[in-house]
């Protein structure tokens, strides 16, 4: 476990994020981030790499930002999701699991643009039982929500969100959860729900989506991932432990 956690702390993440920001100044976005993400051993920075079996994560990662262009925003997102799913003695938190990259990548695609959803007006707020009625896409909601988190940090503590203590961040996230923050075109409670759900998705989705790095969230939860069959073991009384497998093992 200790080995698996190598390079997972938030401090390390901030440090490497700082490097990435530096790279942005000097070079192109993609080049800078790829350079930052892959360290000398070909491992994904801040992830613990591919120790032992279950090595589908091996090889160079092309992980990078597809949606955010402002590292300040990405860093607020990163700190917020880490509070929702923090690193602890069980294993990595959202940052160590790559959740911020997962969310960024999702916001750049169908999820962010609500491509498979009915987005034709007229739009009315509606009752809670009628669900999502915003004209905003998720990409727009995340941008606005993150800006609001930064605003709350300034207003409440006169600091940047990423410079707050954990408890102060929690106070702000709780205000969103309780729908106490004014947002435009959407409620803060709704943004909180999106953020929480996206965090869980990033933590526990197959690593092919750039979260759940090294399948460490599956290891914590003892979910074996993509196993072809349990027919020989399903009648066992004993709890069965497996080395998890990613879908990437299917592509060979």
């Amino acid at each position: 476990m200790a080995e698996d956690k190598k390079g997972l702390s938030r401090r390390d993440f901030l440090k490497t994020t700082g490097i990435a920001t530096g790279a942005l100044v000097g070079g192109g976005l993609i080049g800078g981030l790829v350079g930052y993400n892959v360290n000398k051993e070909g491992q994904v920075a801040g992830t613990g790499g591919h120790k032992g079996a279950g090595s589908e994560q091996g090889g160079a990662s092309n992980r990078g930002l597809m949606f955010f262009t402002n590292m300040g925003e990405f860093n607020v997102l990163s700190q917020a999701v880490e509070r929702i799913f923090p690193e602890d003695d069980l294993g990595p938190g959202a940052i160590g699991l790559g959740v911020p990259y997962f969310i960024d990548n999702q916001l750049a695609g169908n999820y962010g643009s609500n491509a498979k959803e009915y987005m034709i007006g007229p739009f009315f707020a509606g009752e809670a039982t009628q669900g999502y009625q915003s004209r905003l896409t998720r990409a727009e909601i995340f941008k606005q929500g993150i800006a609001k988190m930064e605003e709350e940090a300034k207003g409440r503590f006169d600091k940047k969100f990423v410079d707050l203590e954990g408890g102060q961040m929690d106070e702000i996230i709780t205000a969103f959860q309780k729908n106490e923050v004014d947002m435009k075109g959407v409620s803060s409670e709704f943004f909180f729900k999106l953020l929480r759900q996206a965090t869980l998705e990033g933590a526990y989705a197959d690593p092919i989506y750039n979260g759940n790095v090294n399948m460490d969230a599956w290891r914590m939860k003892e979910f074996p991932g993509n196993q072809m069959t349990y027919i020989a073991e399903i009648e066992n009384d004993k709890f069965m432990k497996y080395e998890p497998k990613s879908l990437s093992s299917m592509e060979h």
Partner: protein
Amino acid sequence: MATTLDKVDVVTVGVGWGGGIIGAECAKAGLKVLGLERGKSRGTEDYQLIHDEFRYGVRYDLMQDLSKETISFRNNRKMRALPMRQMGSFLLGEGLGGSGTHWNGHTWRFLPYDFEIKSMTDKKYGKDKLSSDYLLQDWGVTYDELEPYFEKFEKTAGISGEDANPFWGKRKSDFPTPPMKKTPILKKFEKATSNLGYTPFMLPSANLSEPYENPDGESIMACQYCGFCERFGCEYGAKTSPEITVVPTARKTGNYDVRFHANVVEVLKKGNKVTGVKYIDTQTGEEFIQPANVVVLTSYVMNNAKLLMVSGIGEMYDPETGKGTLGKNYAYQILPGATGFFDEQMNVFMGAGSLGMTIDDFNGDNFDHGNLDFIHGASLSIVQTGVRPIASNPLPPDTPVWGEEFKKASIHNYTRTLNIGGQGASIPHKENYLTLDPNYKDAYGVPLLQLTYNFTEQDKNLHKYLTEKTAAIMKEMGAKTVMAGSPITNYDIVPYQTTHNTGGTIMGVSPDNSVVNSQLQHWDAENLFVVGAGNFAHNGGYNPTGTVGALAYRAADGIVKYSKNGGSLV
């Protein structure tokens, strides 16, 4: 200007279980059948990367594209109906196999009581057991009349089960394949329910216990218990679905074809007959008219009702006057249940969609309702479907939903939590109905279907009574903490509940209170048939597919007979 195509004998709108069964049976009888499917072709070879909770379970890869078409919803007539912008409460299907691709495979025969619910309730409890606001009526067909068709569907699907339930209708033959494996989790339920004096039995399953060849010569494989059924296709061809059974059966006759990306927008009617359908090729935008001697609506509940409404066939139901039949008796399902937190870890990630045990002691009229303020009930089951980590984050009462404590509790309890759930009957109410939305349209310019629905007093009472029963079973199973389901209040279209929508195009004995006759033939057009759970006059205490399959096989017999002789089948 629409292009008119060559006439066929039978056209089905949609190719899931309904379209596949009608297609296979009519093609076997020598009729030329065309299935119009708005989605794409797909089959077992497309499910090789199916063990992906995120793509299929969370992002709904196999489901309907709501950007093209959805429904609108309100709880009651005073509310403004708004579009269901995201999938939630139920998961609409699309593509070959329809919802029959991503079902779990629970395959029940509705109880004899269900088909004669009005007569039997009146006889036993008097006419005032429920107020007249509940639109209770008999189906116009009895269990005994349907029995051969239940058997036929089960043989096509190779259903695995055991005839060990004292409460269900008499079976002429045993299940085609033996029950699935009885796992330690199922045994906990078996022991607890036996201790409490109930009669547990293995849930009838379309995830097969052994390889099977059906009477049409189609092969279905043995389930591997991989834990990816509901919302997923089966990469082994071990979960019976239309694309591995009735569709290939239809195709090998040489009399059957499916046209994909064909979205039907209207049923064409002239005088007292229909002449065919109009559809749009969703890839080119071209309009076509497909003439047919017989039109069969075999899409989902929602779309079958909508097509009749936009085509002006039948009288729309008006909740104000009670007149009209099209859209009435929409019902859903009531879901009592309890969660139990255990000390020991269990192999909860292993499983299959229909790997379960059930008791029917509180279903239908299997228990006395004399002193109860509701009718009917629910099958109560434990189902080891295989729980997955994004969706399953079980939290004991009063645990925060995020942060350090959340993470620890959700990880700890993931392998230590079990659920007992009921499929509760849903009795139609005069205020719960389907109509056309006056404001919102789909991508083809056709109005959205509008759903007005809320839970009733009957629903709330049924839910409360049965939730207590499930909690008692969970306690007997040895859970250290039992969390009973919260009482139901207003129906909420956001959280997933069940894709067991019924009604709107109900069957019956009279055109005064039903849309189709007991052969599913439309009262106003003898060559138009409407097939699916929309025919249910109420929703029973089981999953609907077994009963849909039986009704479809019976309708197919009628369509073949009609094609020879014409006229009304009743």
